[in-house]
């Protein structure tokens, strides 16, 4: 092996005894290894940051209406009804996310330990996430439809058939089918990360299960709950194909993603589509930031788990 890089004792002592640049950079953790980040950074800049900035710029250059024309159109134009679509989306996403998280907590708490068939159960629960919303929608149309198995069963019991698809409820159900397993598995893994001996300790100190849950588990779980809520909310807030397939995209499930897509793919109004996309991102970020602010007031340290 040749001894390259063997520089003669060239003084790296700059004037006034300042350490060499490489020394000063090394002190802050900067060296050649960081070059490995470059390809990923380049992709992120070219395919994410640049388009985003481009879209932002585009949203301020509508054909008519001046700088804020696209936004004005989004919020006020009766054919766009952007404000309505925000409410429609939130009315779907917030209840769906809340329900998914709230139902998951007691379920995951009961199932946090080891039991036979746990892996099988988690595997089954991954299926709807894997299948995605399009297939779920197709299944819901069949299963919940006027002549589907569910209404047939209700008929046997003597109930009137329910209108469960082509409306708000169809979309909510599809959000639950794909969102609940997601929330459940996340919370289950957060709960598994809490050292079981903490609860055992609380038990030896005389806490019953309610006290243990409220005083020990819940505070340690809170950060995980916040993250789970955020991710479940993002999933629900993005609702798009199922709003079209099992919803009523011209009325009660006219979600913001649909409005944005409509402007983009049907009307070819790119500034309006960009404005809708930007508003969509902004609304989502507001909700997430609110949740994270709540979270930042919680205990954030280790949960004593082995991870």
């Amino acid at each position, binding site marked *: 092996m040749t001894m390259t*890089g*063997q520089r003669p*004792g060239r003084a790296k002592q700059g004037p006034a005894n300042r350490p060499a640049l490489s020394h000063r950079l090394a002190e802050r953790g900067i060296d050649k290894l960081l070059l490995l980040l470059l390809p990923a950074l380049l992709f992120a800049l070219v395919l994410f940051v640049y388009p985003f900035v481009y879209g932002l710029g585009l949203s301020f250059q509508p054909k008519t209406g001046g700088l804020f024309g696209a936004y004005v159109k989004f919020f006020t134009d009766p054919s766009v009804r952007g404000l309505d679509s925000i409410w429609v989306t939130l009315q779907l996403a917030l209840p769906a996310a809340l329900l998914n998280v709230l139902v998951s907590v007691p379920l995951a708490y009961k199932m946090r330990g080891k039991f036979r068939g746990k892996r099988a159960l988690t595997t089954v629960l991954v299926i709807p996430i894997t299948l995605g919303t399009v297939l779920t929608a197709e299944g819901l149309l069949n299963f919940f439809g006027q002549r589907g198995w569910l209404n047939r069963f209700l008929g046997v019991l003597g109930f009137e058939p329910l209108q469960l698809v082509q409306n708000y409820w169809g979309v909510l159900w599809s959000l639950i089918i794909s969102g609940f397993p997601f929330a459940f598995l996340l919370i289950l893994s957060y709960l598994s990360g809490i050292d079981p001996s903490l609860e055992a300790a609380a038990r030896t100190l005389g806490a019953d299960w309610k006290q243990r849950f409220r005083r020990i588990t819940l505070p340690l779980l809170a950060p995980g709950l916040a993250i789970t809520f955020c991710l479940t909310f993002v999933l629900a807030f993005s609702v798009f194909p199922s709003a079209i397939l099992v919803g009523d995209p011209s009325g009660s499930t006219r979600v913001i993603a649909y409005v944005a897509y409509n402007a983009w793919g049907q009307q070819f109004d790119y500034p309006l589509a960009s404005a809708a996309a930007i508003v969509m991102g902004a609304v989502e970020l507001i909700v997430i930031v609110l949740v994270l602010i709540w979270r930042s007031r919680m205990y954030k340290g280790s949960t004593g788990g082995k991870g």
Partner: protein
Amino acid sequence: MSIHATSFETLELENVARSFGGQNALRNLNLSIRSGEFIALLGPSGCGKSTALNCLAGLLPLTGGRILMDGKQIDRLPPEKRGFGMVFQNYALFPHLSVEKNIAFGLEMRKVPKAEIKKRVAEAIELVQLGPHATKLPGQMSGGQQQRVAIARAVVLRPPLVLMDEPLSNLDAKLRLEMRTEIRRLHQSLGLTTLYVTHDQEEALSLADRLVVLRLGEVQQVGTPQDLHEHPVNWHVADFMGYRNLLEGVVERAHGEAVTVSVLGTTVTGSAQVPLRAGDAVKVGLRPEDFDIAPAGTAPAGLASIDATVEVVEYQGREFAVEVRSDAGKPLHVRTARHVEPGQRVTLTATQDRVLVFPAELASAPDRAPQLQGAAL
């Protein structure tokens, strides 16, 4: 035996420094290592000893100073070009490679011919007595065996310098003693120049030819084990060298080396380690084994004596470790062969040359508050 170290004449560390985001982890380390020496870097955690080792290895870039090997500057070379061997605290064996492959790895990197690799690996395995385990994976071995592999992996390269980063601290007490002897034996038989980092003074004293005591990134004292043990330069080094009793006091009278200090409500005469004057705040250092313990009232007259009550007695083989509480309220540690009972009144005495008196202030980095003050009291 063909494992013999390639060598250098001297390895010089000149003002070596390393800081992390403005925090100095190591400053102005000056050290000259001669071929064949066994040097221990000793200090509590966070004293900069591992930083020093990593800087020398090339794993951490320096932020100041130079490292010269036989006059050639090597501190810009990446670790793989320096050719040193290293043994890590957590063994750092490659988990996916067998014992043989682990040991052969460095030779393969150096493009040593296959036949020679085989021969040298076999020798190294023999050297650390791991013959029956050659094809095992590291995960299937005990901690002591893994550390033997790690040592074999380092010495098989015949490196001019072996760096050892607390190699014994993950082992249990019995194994630690065994491995300590092993390391010493290897050093003697192979003539490996070794730099050994540890926080365990006993380990350092028993292994090293020379010790370097570090505190808060700065060298406190360099010397032979005997130097440091008998003549620590300040109370911090004393603390590390087993002077478990460090008592705060004030100088009353000074006659050259002999100083009389008021401490624990009485006066003690000891030897000043630096010139001291009356009124100086000092720390008096005493090793547990330098006390003489006697039932109250039976102490020989003429020696400084401290009256105390026995609190805890631990049987430790041939001796007792005794904790007493002086009448002034301070706990003191004593080792003695004499049998005493908890609650018994005793008098402690010590000869003047074993009572070391240090200035209370450490001449330390001005930008750092001494954090170890009173650690022994």
